[in-house]
C-alpha cells in the first residue's frame, strides 16, 4: 500500500467546492510533482490532509497514512504526523517564520516535539541542520531573527525546520516562487541533495511544469479542484493526454534554442462557486466537443500508470474506463 493514499478527497468553503474529489497516492521515498494554475487546489490538498485548514472548510473523503486515517482524526493523531512524518514548507519564507523568535529557537521547537531533544544536544543539532541546508556561519546565524536573513536563507531555515522532525515525506508548497531565479535553482538543488542523502519522499507543488520535471519522477496535473492527468514525468512530456496539460506544455519556455512566442491558455480558471457543467476545462478547451459540457469526464488509463480525465483521451488498448476513485 502507498505511504499516503488520498481517496476522493473534497474540500468546500461554504457552498463553493474547492476540491472536487482528489485521488492521489505517494509511495514511500517517491518524488511527486503537483502542478496547476493558481487557485486549482494544490495547497489545500495537503493542508486538508494534515488538518491545517480553518474550521470553516468542510473536508470529505479519506487520507490514509500507512493505513491510518487522517481526515477527521484527533489532535493526538495529527500532531505527531505534522512535522514528524509529513513536514510542509510554504511559498513565502519571510512570512512563514515567526518574526519574534530566533530561527534557532524555531528549529529547536521541532526537535523537542519529534525527537525529544532539548538543551545543548538540541542546540548542536540546530547548528548541524543549519549547516546541512547551507547556512554559512550557522552558530551565529542560529541567533538571528527571520528579518535579519534573506528570503533564500529563510527558506533554507524552513527546510532545516522540516528536516528537524526527520519526516518521511516533505511537502514543499511552491518553495521557490517568492525567490529570485538564481536562488530558486539553489533551493531546488538543496532539495535534490537532501533527497539523495535521506530516504525522504517529496511532494513538490509548483505551477511550473519545468521545475517539477527536473526534480520529480511522477507528475500530477490539477485543474479546478480535480486531478486531470497523472503519469511518470517522461510520459507527461512524451504523451500529454489532457488538453490542459498540453496547454501547460505550450506555455513552457523552451530551455534552449531560439526564443519563440509562448502559447498561453486563453481564458481563466472558473470560480469555485460557478463550476461549469460537464468538464470544468470545457470553456477554455480548444478540443471540446458537444459532449464535454454534458459529461464530467472520469479518469481514463491511457497507458500503464498514466491517467487522464478527458472524454477525448484515448484509452490504452487494455484499459477500460474506470471511475477515478477506484483507480487511484
Amino acid at each position, binding site marked *: 500500500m502507498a505511504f499516503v493514499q488520498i481517496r476522493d478527497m473534497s474540500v468546500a468553503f461554504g457552498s463553493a467546492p474547492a476540491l472536487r474529489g482528489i485521488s492521489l497516492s505517494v509511495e514511500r521515498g517517491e518524488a511527486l510533482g503537483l502542478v496547476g494554475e493558481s487557485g486549482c487546489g494544490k495547497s489545500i490538498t495537503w*493542508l486538508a490532509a*494534515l488538518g*491545517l485548514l480553518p474550521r470553516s472548510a468542510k473536508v470529505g473523503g479519506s487520507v490514509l497514512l500507512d493505513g491510518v486515517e487522517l481526515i477527521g482524526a484527533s*489532535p493526538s493523531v495529527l*500532531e*505527531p*504526523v*505534522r*512535522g*514528524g512524518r509529513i*513536514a*510542509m514548507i*510554504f511559498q*513565502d519564507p519571510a*512570512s*512563514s*517564520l*515567526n*518574526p*519574534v*523568535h530566533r530561527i534557532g529557537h524555531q528549529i529547536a*521547537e*521541532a526537535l523537542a*516535539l*519529534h525527537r525529544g531533544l532539548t538543551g545543548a544536544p538540541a542546540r548542536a543539532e540546530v547548528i548541524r541542520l543549519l549547516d546541512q541546508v547551507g547556512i554559512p556561519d550557522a552558530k551565529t546565524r542560529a541567533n*538571528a*531573527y527571520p*528579518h*535579519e*536573513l*534573506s*528570503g*533564500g*536563507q529563510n527558506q*533554507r531555515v*524552513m527546510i532545516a*525546520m522540516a528536516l528537524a*522532525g526527520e519526516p518521511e515525506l516533505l511537502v514543499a508548497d511552491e518553495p521557490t516562487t517568492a*525567490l529570485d531565479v538564481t*536562488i530558486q535553482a*539553489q533551493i531546488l538543488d538543496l532539495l535534490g541533495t537532501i533527497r539523495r542523502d535521506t530516504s525522504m519522499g517529496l511532494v513538490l507543488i509548483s505551477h511550473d511544469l519545468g521545475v517539477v520535471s527536473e526534480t520529480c519522477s511522477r507528475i500530477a496535473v490539477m485543474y479546478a479542484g480535480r486531478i486531470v492527468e497523472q503519469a511518470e514525468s517522461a510520459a507527461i512530456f512524451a504523451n500529454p493526454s489532457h488538453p490542459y496539460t498540453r496547454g501547460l506544455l505550450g506555455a513552457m519556455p523552451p530551455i534552449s534554442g531560439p526564443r519563440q512566442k509562448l502559447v498561453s491558455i486563453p481564458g481563466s480558471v472558473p470560480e469555485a462557486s460557478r463550476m461549469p457543467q460537464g468538464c470544468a476545462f470545457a470553456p477554455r478547451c480548444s478540443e471540446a466537443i458537444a459532449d464535454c459540457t454534458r459529461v464530467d469526464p472520469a479518469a481514463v488509463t491511457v497507458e500503464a500508470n498514466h491517467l487522464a480525465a478527458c472524454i477525448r483521451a484515448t484509452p490504452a488498448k487494455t484499459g477500460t474506463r474506470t471511475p477515478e476513485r477506484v483507480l487511484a
Partner: protein
Amino acid sequence: MLHYLGTRLLRATVSVVMVVTFVFIVLRMSGDPAVVIMGADAPPEAVDAFRTAWGLDQPIWVQYLSFFKAIFSGDLGQSMRDGRDAVAVVLERVPSTLALTVPAFLLNVGIGIPAGVYAALHRNTAIDRFVMVMAVTGFAMPSFILAMLLVLVFSVNLGWLPSAGQDSWLNAILPIVTMGFGGAALLARFTRSAMLEVLGQSYIRTASAKGLSWSAVVWRHALQNAAIPTVTIIGFMLGGLVAGAVVVESVFSWPGVGRLLVVSVSNRDLAVVQAIVLMIALTMVAANFVVDILYGLLDPKMQSQTRPARA
C-alpha cells in the same frame, strides 16, 4: 537598542516642551487672569497691582521664558487663589486620582486583553458576539452617561453605593467601574482584531504544521505578536484614562487632580493649571516611553540594526 532609546528620549523631551508651550499660549489667550481672579468689578488700580505682582505685565515671551526657568528650578509658582505652592496643591490630590486610575487601568488590562483573546480564539461563537456587543457599547457610550446610569441603578434605585464624595472605599467603586469599562471595551476590541490578524498569518500555519498543539501555537507563537499592536493601544489608552479622570471625578465629586483641573481652569488659576498640565504631560510622555521600550522588547525588528544578508 541604545540608539533606539536615544531617539525615543529625544522625542519625549520635544513632546513635553510642545505641550507646555501650547497650554501656556492657550491659557493666556483665553482671558485675562487678573480680571478673572479679581472679578470684573474690581477697581483698575487693584487689577494693575495684581498684574505687577504676578508678572502678568511683562511681555509674553518674558513670561514664557521665566516659566521654563521656573520649571527647571522646580518652582511652578503659587496658586492665585490662596497663594499656596501650586505643585503642593496638585500633589496632595494625586493619591486620590491614583486610587481611581490604577484600579481602573488594571480592570482595562485584566478584562480587556483576556476578553479580546478569548473572543478571537472563539470567533463567531455566542461568547465572541457577547464580548463584541459589550465592547461596542463600552466604546460608544460616553463615560458621563455610563456614570449617570450606574448612579441611577446602584445609588438611586438599589441604594447600594454612594454617588458622590470620598467618605469610604465604597465611593471609589462606581468611578472605577465607569473608567474600567470603557477602557476594557476599547482594549478588548483591539486585542481581538490584533489576535485575529496574527492567527491568519503564515507563521501560525507553520507552527501548526510543525506539530505543536493548538494551545502551544497560541501561547508561544500568537500572543507575543498580538501584543505588539496592543501595547501601542495601551499607550494611547493612558491618555484616555487621564481625560476620563477629569470627567468621572467631576461627576462623582471625587477630590482628585481631574476635578482640581476643572475648577482651576474656570478660575484661570494659571499656576495650578500649568502644574497639572505639566504633570499630565510628563506622565503621558513617561508612559509612552515605557510603551516604546516594551515595544522594542517585544518586536526584534525595532532594536536590530543588522542589515538583511544575501542568500
